[in-house]
């Protein structure tokens, strides 16, 4: 085996990408060999193989991220000859490595969680084999330097993800979610394959660097169509609008560890594909048409999914819709085409893996302990599962964008980048995008208030009287993620310097990607410009002074409302007698027209009246009932309908690409 390296870097580092991928696939093979018995050995194999790939990826960070090397590796030593790269290559630049880090970290954490979580399930050997194959395909996808190899990895990923979605076959809806994922997902896979075929017919190569070298000059309707096919293919793997119903069905029924991988990592691989496609291969993100379209797709996914989440009664289904909503943020930021926007998108992608992983694992813990995910049947678990509740709160605060957690920092960056883009381009679409993003953030907070209320607050139901918090083994992975939430939230500057800036610079610099394969100067010969390094300063999200202003503003607002409202919200009503209490509450709420409000202000009559999650925002939902009932009908659950949306998206993108590119 031989390696070719950009510059002089040599030694073992050049082999790290392939070993990181092989470690996971080898682990899958060994797990299958171990068989049903010997659970400890099996866990050992899973632990070691996922740890090895994580360590190898971390070891690649100093040379690739800090020193700017690009590691290329040719399978079987088939190096490119005279600008023709026929062999299959792995190419790890900072962008690939950034996503590889997300993949391996999430895989390791979810594996740790799986050990206690899946302990009661039958056929653990199948679970771990599929799990490691899924992990290997994800890592192979982001590290691959070959388009067809990416397709193969996508197929392994889809197949194993479907199998794992249906792993708990007897769980209600597991098979249904899996088959919908399979059928609608196959549209995406076919689209990628057709895109590859068209591209090969035009350029006779599948190597990403060679494609990047030759695509800008080979612009034709055929390559535009290939772009549309590949974009829809990767978009469907990221579950972007209109593929989002799929995600909701699949996430909600999969085991929690798999939900974390599907939502945290598989969607990120779709995002990676879109970034690679638009920034490195076609280099067309600077075109206003592409930029506007991608941003708009992101913003629409973001808004529609958050409103759908608002309406859900299943804990994990709600989280699933939120996860696509957050991916919408990422795509909206990535689509801006600015260096800062890309940084913001990457940061949010990373943060989403962390906090959504945490939330899914917390939901899994609730399901493990209480046996249900139905928001209308849960309640009062904060007293029974205080540790899980604390972890859930950290995740919920992070996804809602509350400081000091990581969601705040990345959403702040996204708003700033959209704002700058709107100002710079003067395009009203970006103002709309900004408004949609802000609205979605508010709705995210609202729906997490709803989840917290209906799962953790209120009186504890009698059937959960004997409930115990989950074991420490299950909480350790959650604590890892919660700690990451806080660390990345407190030090966004450091994260930006170490990870985001190199990754965004690599995405914006296709010339280096090409030169790493074909030698220095190749890209310059083909007139592919070196990217100018942009550096911007954040509008001080971690400046203490702005925090103080925020605190003062909020305090003033609260005081203002309390003075104007004139209602003694903080006072408790001392009444022993039921009749007395009723009178007191009547006096207290004399101005309120509807007794339905009483439970909101603890004036409830029944001892066990829990404000259900679906009641919390009933006024809002009632005012927008037309929209909500329309959306309900639209997400019909029929696989034919979802297929139609997918095909419509494909047709739309084809028309768009051929007309606008």
């Amino acid at each position, binding site marked *: 085996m031989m390696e070719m390296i950009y510059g002089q870097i040599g030694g073992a580092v050049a082999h790290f990408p392939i070993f990181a991928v092989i470690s996971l696939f080898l682990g899958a093979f060994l797990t299958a060999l171990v068989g049903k018995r010997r659970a400890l050995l099996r866990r050992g194999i899973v632990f070691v193989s996922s740890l090895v790939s994580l360590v190898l990826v971390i070891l690649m960070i100093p040379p690739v991220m800090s020193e700017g090397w690009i590691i290329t590796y040719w399978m079987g030593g088939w190096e490119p000859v005279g600008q023709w790269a026929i062999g299959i290559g792995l190419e790890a630049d900072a962008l690939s490595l950034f996503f590889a880090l997300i993949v391996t970290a999430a895989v390791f954490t979810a594996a740790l969680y799986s050990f206690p979580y899946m302990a009661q399930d039958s056929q653990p050997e199948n679970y771990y084999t599929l799990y490691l194959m899924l992990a290997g395909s994800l890592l192979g996808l982001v590290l691959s330097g070959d388009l*067809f190899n990416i397709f193969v990895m996508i197929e392994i990923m889809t*197949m194993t993800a479907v199998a794992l979605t*249906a792993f708990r076959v007897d769980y209600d809806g597991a098979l249904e979610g899996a088959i919908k994922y399979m059928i609608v997902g*196959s549209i995406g*896979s076919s689209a990628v394959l057709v895109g*590859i075929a068209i591209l*090969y017919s035009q350029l006779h190569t599948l190597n990403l660097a060679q494609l990047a070298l030759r695509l800008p000059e080979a612009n034709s309707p055929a390559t535009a169509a290939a772009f549309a096919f590949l974009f829809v293919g990767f978009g469907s793997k990221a579950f972007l609008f209109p593929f989002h119903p799929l995600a909701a069905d699949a996430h909600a029924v999969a085991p929690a560890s798999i939900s974390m991988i599907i939502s945290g990592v598989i969607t990120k691989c779709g995002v990676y594909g879109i970034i690679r496609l638009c920034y490195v291969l076609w280099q067309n993100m600077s075109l206003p048409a592409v930029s506007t379209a991608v941003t708009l797709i992101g913003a629409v996914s973001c808004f529609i999914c958050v409103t759908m989440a608002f309406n859900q009664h299943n804990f994990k289904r709600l989280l699933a819709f939120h996860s696509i909503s957050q991916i919408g943020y990422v795509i909206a930021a990535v689509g801006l085409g600015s260096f800062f926007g890309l940084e913001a998108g990457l940061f949010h992608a990373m943060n989403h893996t962390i906090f959504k992983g945490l939330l899914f694992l917390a939901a899994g813990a609730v399901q493990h302990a209480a046996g249900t995910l139905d928001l209308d049947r849960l309640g009062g678990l904060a007293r029974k599962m205080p540790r899980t509740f604390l972890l859930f709160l950290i995740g919920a605060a992070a996804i809602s964008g509350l400081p000091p957690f990581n969601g705040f920092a990345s959403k702040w960056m996204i708003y700033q980048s959209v704002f700058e883009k709107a100002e710079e381009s003067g395009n009203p679409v970006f103002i709309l995008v900004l408004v949609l993003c802000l609205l979605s953030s508010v709705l995210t907070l609202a729906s997490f208030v709803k989840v917290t209320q209906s799962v953790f607050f209120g009186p504890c139901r009698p059937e959960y009287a004997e409930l115990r918090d989950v074991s420490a083994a299950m909480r350790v992975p959650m604590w890892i993620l919660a700690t990451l939430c806080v660390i990345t939230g407190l030090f966004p500057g450091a994260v930006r310097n170490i990870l985001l800036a190199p990754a965004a610079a690599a995405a914006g610099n296709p010339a280096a990607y090409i030169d790493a394969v074909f030698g220095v100067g190749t890209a310059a010969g083909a007139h592919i410009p070196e990217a100018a390094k942009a550096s911007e300063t954040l509008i001080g999200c971690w400046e203490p002074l702005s925090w103080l202003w925020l605190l003062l503003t909020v305090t003033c607002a609260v005081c203002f409302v309390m003075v104007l409202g004139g209602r003694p919200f903080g006072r408790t009503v001392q009444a022993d007698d039921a009749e007395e209490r009723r009178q007191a509450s009547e006096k207290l709420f004399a101005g309120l027209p509807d007794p339905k409000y009483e439970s909101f202000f603890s004036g409830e009559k029944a001892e066990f009246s829990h404000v259900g999650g679906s009641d919390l925002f009933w006024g809002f939902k009632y005012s927008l009932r037309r929209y909500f009932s329309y959306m309900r009908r639209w997400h019909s659950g*029929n696989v*034919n309908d979802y297929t139609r949306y997918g095909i419509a998206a494909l047709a739309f993108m084809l028309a768009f690409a051929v007309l606008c590119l």
Partner: protein
Amino acid sequence: MILINYIAAFALIALGFYCMAVKKNLIKICIGMGIADYGANLLIVSVGFHDGGTAPIFTIGELTRASFFVDPVPQALTLTSIVIGACTTAMTLSLIIRLKEKYGTLNSDEIRRLRG
């Protein structure tokens, strides 16, 4: 002559997608997935076709500047893609068998507990 391959390939893909979007029976949807996949395979293998080319099988020494053969890469791709297609079909059918046991129907209109 090669044009008809391209037309047929896209016709097959369109037919497969149509099948998936319109047919209610899950088995027929699975067949539609297969047809779309065959269309893609036909497209790839047509892409590498050269009129009058021989099969791209040579031993060392046989290969000269004058040899004229079809592009071997798309054939390798097609082979891979056929294998993947077979896996997809097998996987879908196995899911359909379990679905039939559980839901008692193959009608996609009735398999919609997850919605809204």
